[in-house]
């Protein structure tokens, strides 16, 4: 097994991941991939402390996450990979991280963002990154929690959002 969930979520490590998805997917490890957070040991500790002790956690840069996910140890672990933005997930994919598809779990409202779904708000930068993920052959699914409704996100939805922006 390797990556069991690659999730874009601007809350990163929180209950929907450590309780909701982890109860369903039983990961061995959660990887938080963020250049900004990985460069700050204190922030890294804050996020890492939110993960239950039974699950290993790594807070690493995008480049280190890609290397780790390509390594032989990764194949033996069930891993959840998190990024805070679509652009970071796109970068991770283009660095060669083997991802099974991408889950849009939570992009909350912010300046210049429009609602795609009640838990997914996007701007042009997000849409460009989602297009890159699609172009890389990755399926995009918006789903906040296990058992919640799955929304397939394709080029048509992205085009529609671009027109509205």
């Amino acid at each position: 097994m390797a990556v069991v969930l690659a999730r874009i979520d601007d809350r990163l490590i929180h209950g929907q991941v450590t309780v909701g998805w982890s109860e369903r997917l039983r990961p061995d490890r959660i990887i938080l991939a963020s250049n900004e957070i990985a460069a700050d040991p204190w922030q890294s500790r804050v996020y890492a402390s939110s993960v239950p002790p039974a699950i290993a956690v790594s807070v690493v840069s995008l480049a280190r996450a890609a290397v780790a996910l390509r390594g032989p140890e990764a194949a033996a672990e069930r891993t959840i990979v998190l990024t805070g933005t679509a652009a970071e997930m796109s970068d991770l994919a283009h660095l060669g991280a083997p991802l099974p598809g991408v889950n849009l779990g939570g992009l909350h409202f912010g300046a210049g963002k429009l609602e795609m779904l009640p838990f997914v708000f996007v701007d042009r930068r997000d849409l460009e990154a989602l297009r890159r993920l699609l172009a890389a052959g990755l399926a995009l699914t918006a789903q906040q929690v296990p058992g919640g409704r799955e929304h397939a996100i394709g080029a048509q939805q992205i085009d529609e959002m671009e027109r509205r922006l």
Partner: protein
Amino acid sequence: MIRALVITHGNIGAELVRVTGLILGPVEGLEARSNSGRSLADLRAAVSEWLVEGAAAGATGGIVFVDDYGGSCATAAQLACGHEPRRAIVSGVNLAMLLGFLTWR
């Protein structure tokens, strides 16, 4: 007076604050924020704003009550409070905890 902020999922915090007023009468220095619809960055900014307001009013610190350690409310509180020793975070907020705090602060 020690100020306090209650940050929770949904309306739990607002309801807890409202009910403390029903029991004790109007209380000062107690506010609630919800994480509903907010990114972690936005929630962190809301806590920072509350801390700045307190500092402007002469408060040197405060207590942030959160509902669940490991959730976005707790993480936002930790990131906003940083290493300042006169800022404390208490997880597992409930009515008895708030009544005790308001009675003894």
